[in-house]
């Protein structure tokens, strides 16, 4: 691969990630480092996927990432929506995951008790 190709990949993926192309309205990122997995992140992931499937939501993307650092609050989930600050949730059990889908993803109401950080 040549240098220019590297740059092209970067531009393309940046756009995809910025959600402006409308492929996904909202992105759910689940922390899947060892701390997260030990705290149950896999079950949380499954809960998100099943809830999204039940509701037939087609504009929601679920993906994974490494550790954000706050091990005592794992499982950690980040919800990104274009034009809005990123919301970082902590202690996201499968029950909390269902609430996040129902209240935040579908209705736009942040589940404030579980928010641990807001990213600009």
């Amino acid at each position, binding site marked *: *691969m*040549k*240098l220019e190709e*590297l740059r092209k*990949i*970067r531009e393309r*993926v*940046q756009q*995809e*990630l910025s959600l402006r192309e409308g492929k996904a309205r909202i992105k759910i*990122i689940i*922390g899947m*480092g*060892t*701390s997260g*997995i030990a705290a149950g992140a896999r079950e949380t992931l499954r809960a998100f996927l099943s809830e999204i499937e039940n*509701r*037939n*939501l087609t504009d929601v993307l679920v*993906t*994974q*990432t*490494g*550790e*954000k*650092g*706050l*091990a*005592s*609050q794992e499982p*950690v989930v*980040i919800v990104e929506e274009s034009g809005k*600050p990123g*919301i970082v949730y902590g202690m996201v059990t499968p029950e909390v995951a269902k609430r996040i889908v*129902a*209240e935040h993803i*579908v*209705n*736009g*109401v*942040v589940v*404030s008790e579980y*928010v*641990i*950080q*807001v990213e*600009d």
Partner: protein
Amino acid sequence: MRKRLDVLICTGANCLSSRSLEFKKKLEEELERRQLQEEVNIVGTGCMGPCQLGPVMIVYPEGSFYVKLKDEDIPQIVEEHFLKGRPVKRLLWTAPEAAKIVEEKKKIPFFEKQEKVVLKNCGRIDPENIEEYIAYGGYEALAKVMSEMTPEKVIEELIKSKLVGRGGAGFPTGLKWKFTREAKGDEKYVVCNADEGDPGAFKDRAILEGDPHAVIEGMIIAGYTIGAHNGYIYIRAEYPLAIKRLEIALEQARKYGLLGKNILETGFNFDIELRMGAGAFVAGEETALLSSIEGKRGMPRFKPPYPAQKGVWGKPTLINNVETLANIRHIILNGGEWFASIGTENSKGTKLFALSGKVNNTGLIEVPFGLTLGEVIFDIGGGIPKGKKFKAIQMGGPSGGYITSEFLNLPVDYKEIEKTGSIIGSAGMIVLDEDNCMVNMAKFFVEFTMSESCGQCTPCRVGLKQMYGILDRITNGQGTLDDLTLLEKLGKQIKSSSMCGLGQTAPNPVLTGLKYFPEEFLEHVLYKKCRAGVCASLFYAPCTNACPAGVDVPRYLAHMTEGGLKEAFLVHMENNPFPSVCARVCPAFCERPCERGKFDEPIAIREVKRLFADWAMENDVEFNPPLELRKEKVAIVGAGPAGLSCAYFLTRLGYRPVVFESLPVPGGMMRVGIPDYRLPKDVLNEEIARIVESGVELRLNSPVSSLQELKEMGFDAVFISVGAHRSEKLNVKGEELEGVTGGIDFLREVNLGKKMDLKGKRVAVVGGGSTAMDAARTALRLKASEVSVIYRRSREEMPAQAAEVEEAIEEGIKFYFLTNPVEFAGSTRVEKIKCVQMEFQGFDKSGRRRPVPKEGTEFEIETDFVLLCLGQRPELSGFAEELETNKDGTIKVDKDTLETSLTGVFAGGDAVLGPATVVEAVGQGRKAALSIDRYLGYEGKFPFPRREVVETSFNEEEYLKVIPRKTPALEMVEERIKSFIEVNKGILLQEALEESKRCLKCDRGKEVVSEKLEKEKVRIPLGG
């Protein structure tokens, strides 16, 4: 067919008046028009609230809450939401708090004080997708290096950056790359040390799991720079997820032409192989690691030659830590100068730390060098959970040392940390609190390094085993003073003569433990005591261990489960003759370390105590004076808790002591300091009467002017327990004004019966301890129109018991936190207090946040009285010249015997400890009684029966589930502030019996070392 959507429309009275029925009808019509009536269920309900936002509608299953609906909204709702599944946002109710939370959460210190450079991608990208890495600038540094930079330029930038190795040794990275580049040979290697083995370290794991390409990119750049074509990542097998992510990353990198042959079509070849470690800690040492890669046993060898000259396969090898490599791309992209602009003089850039142990926010953090340790633990870390006291930071794993509270203002910096005797090392920070035993910690680390020793060299192989053996004996109560000397000697020898870093640093936890916590080691060895309540063979139970008087809590709780009130009472009296008093006022040191507290809540020991204590009072349980008398005469000066306890315990030993009290009433601080609503006078008087009847001669109104006087009266030994009753001064202008007094003086007057009516007067109390709470609440009951408390720290830091503060707030007392008086103003009488607000800046030596005045925040509080409650010191008058005192005015005594500078004269209680508590005074009085007995030539042993196991008959299993502790009933606020009626009503007998059954019986089956030694007639010093 089950309907897909449930729609609830409020038809409560208020919504009806907003035309919700008409809305419902129109909605039903629209559904019919769109043929959706089979799928959507519409139900009219009762009031759902909030009424002012009607008509209101909820759509399930999501629970979308629509408000302020109008008929015109119907088509959109049906089209967008019912048909397409997209709720109409503009019509939904948005919780107002959510926006506020969003604002607040932006500023959590955990994230705010960090600076993410290396960890930026962790938590942002999908580590299993190389394209996301590329999207955020991945492999740009590689591209830049290969197209624009020579190897020399790369090294120049690294040297400019002043980056040092992040594995622990801290060698300048630029120099290492330079040496390896300059080494002769065309076959060179790049090795990444990913064998993170220190307990408490997990920073490398997080990087490898969350951003593996950063490490790969760093290695390729390294290869290009030094002229290597092959790399190894040596990763421990205990990191399976990291291994998996690395394997995926390597494969993807090869697929995209960024690794392997002809990278970025420049003709440069470089590939990486993964090698797994097999569970040997020592393989983290570079020469052992290289040995392991070669397929040999991971054992270190001598250096020189260094790996840069002769590494793996005997070829020049660059070996770097994961975090070091992850920093490379940032230095390449932003320049060495940028990196050097972050941090301190000696330590550049950011540093990852793994925060664990007794801290609220455990996890991985990245901070710029220069942030203080206090900020890391208390701001980022969120402080110590459960309100426990910080003890030390264990830094650097088994190679490291302890950072105590006096160093909290130190910036995170290689040199600064080294000055304390610790190292940054693998950057694990384990936070320790009051429940950690430093001797046990030392043993834990040596046990680890001992088992990980490769065995090559004698100092490490044999020496560590010896150290472990000694530490093991110490934790089991078999240590001696010589052992401590030997430990230090051995430790230093092992350090100086071991072959590799493992042996050279393994003694550090022991040596720094001895340096910073010598008292704990001494206590284990001399008094067979473990103050943290960890070394199990040294105590019966954590509660008893923590009690300053050593009351046998588990034994009396066991009696209580059987309804044995008298037996429980007798057990208590063996250590403390003031059960009813302590049941009401003790801060309950016993409840703090209660094991049950780790499961649900600590046992309400104090409340249980009150039941048998009060029962004994009501049933007149008495103690007879001694029959076999000692002929020696003992005098006690001061009838407070220390003096009266000493007197009582002396009677148990066969004496008939004489107590001299200057006031017309006995009790000391219990009588003149603690108000009736906390400790009713008749309760105190009953317990004092019991002590007098046990054989004590009490002389009231009898001040003692000198020790000579007592000597002339024929006393053979004296115990001085005059307490600390002189109020400390604030030393500000206006303190001499009328109306400004010591809180303790105010309380004394009230408690001695002086009539005081504060009706219509405003009272301000300065201070945050029990005395301040007592003074404030007493003033309130004397009808003061306004009572406020001014305290220079925050509520969490108040020394007063939490319950007292809560009750004071309930009673309507106003609190000014983080406020300090600077002047009292008025003509002859105080009229107002000039105050300034405080803010926290750094920490003081004891580890508490240091309050400093905030500029420009001066304000005034109008008042008629000021009560200063800033602590007390002893008033020694006649004795002052004869006895040696400490700087704070307390009497100097021998720690073991409580003897003062004069032979035969002993002292205890607040006069020695400074303002303390009733139970501490009791403990000292009891100890002094034994000490005096020994001084007079006797054994110094109470004739109490040997400790026996109390058999209980209740079903213990029933109590092994979550059961909250019983809380006492309090008198209602409106009633209690009108008089001095007792506030705390206690718990019921039945509740106390039940509460006792929650005890986990930590003392079960134990024979404590000190008892064993007593059986063997070995005398242990009283100390501790």
